[in-house]
């Protein structure tokens, strides 16, 4: 009687394990396999300088570019590129003021990269030194502006 009820119990319980590996009764030891996985997306948070304001008394300004919470696929690298809209000229109509940028005290090179973070690293930062060079012969009063675009790519 006990065996009968036990068999009934097993029979009713079987559909509840539909997602589990089926292991049928056999004479020897049995095993089943179930795959277990967890997908972690890559991502990051970058901080870029929103504004750089020069004044007569402050022609050199320091800003930082940084990355945190970086998670990349193994072997890939996060690069942050910088590009000036006006080729490092702050413009006011047809008048302009040149400015320059150093990255970690080195000249900003043609690659345009200001920061790189390798997979396995979770953060990084770079120091930007920006210096304005007004000639003193600018034609107009008013705001001279440029825009820096920071492009982030995982390569």
């Amino acid at each position, binding site marked *: 009687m006990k065996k009968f009820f036990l068999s009934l119990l097993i029979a009713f319980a079987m559909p509840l394990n539909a997602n589990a590996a089926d292991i049928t009764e056999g004479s020897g030891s049995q095993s089943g396999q179930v795959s277990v996985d967890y997908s972690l*997306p*890559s*991502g*990051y*948070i*970058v*901080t*870029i*300088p*929103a*504004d*750089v*304001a020069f004044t007569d008394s402050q022609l050199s300004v320091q*800003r*930082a*570019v*940084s990355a945190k919470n970086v998670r*990349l*696929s193994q072997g890939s690298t996060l690069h942050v590129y910088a590009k000036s809209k006006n080729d490092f000229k702050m413009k006011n109509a047809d008048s302009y003021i040149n400015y320059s940028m150093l990255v970690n005290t080195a000249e900003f090179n043609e690659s345009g990269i200001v920061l790189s973070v390798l997979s396995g690293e979770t953060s990084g930062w770079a120091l930007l030194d920006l210096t304005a060079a007004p000639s003193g012969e600018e034609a107009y009063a008013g705001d001279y502006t440029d*825009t*820096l*675009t*920071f*492009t*982030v*790519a*995982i390569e």
Partner: protein
Amino acid sequence: MDKNNKNKRIALILAGALILAALILLAKCSHGAQMPVKDKQSVIVPEGGVVLTDEPKTSSAERGVEIPGIECLEINADTAQAQLDLYNPVSNRDAYYLSFELILLSSEKPETLYLSPLLAPGESVGGITLSHSLAPGEYDALIKVQPYQMDADRTMTNNAELKIKLTVRRGV
């Protein structure tokens, strides 16, 4: 035997009295120099002291603008509905709004698939409607992130472009 029991009883009473006296003395001492109680919500500020927070007291211009980024975006084919998990970090509070523009690069001319409204710090994008659906495949795309100052003119600042891989799948 009775004498011994009696002595034991007296010793116990004396010990109890001593302990009680010590407790009373301790209570009196602590009452005269109470330690401030710190709970989870309050911060103890000693007289003439300064409350320290996690963030250094720098201007928003010096702090910069925080921009979250992704490497890949997966969407379903044959539908214009998609999920874009991007947000304006709370750390940009009192400083910058963000807008997110999803741009398809693989077509002949870059085209905007989606442009978000201005998001305040703490707000996120979530479910979006693209300008049109896409056929299955892998595409190069860009998410242009434009910060705006929280001034009356909503002045645009330096911006960021996030290069991503856009994967369009059937029945995801």
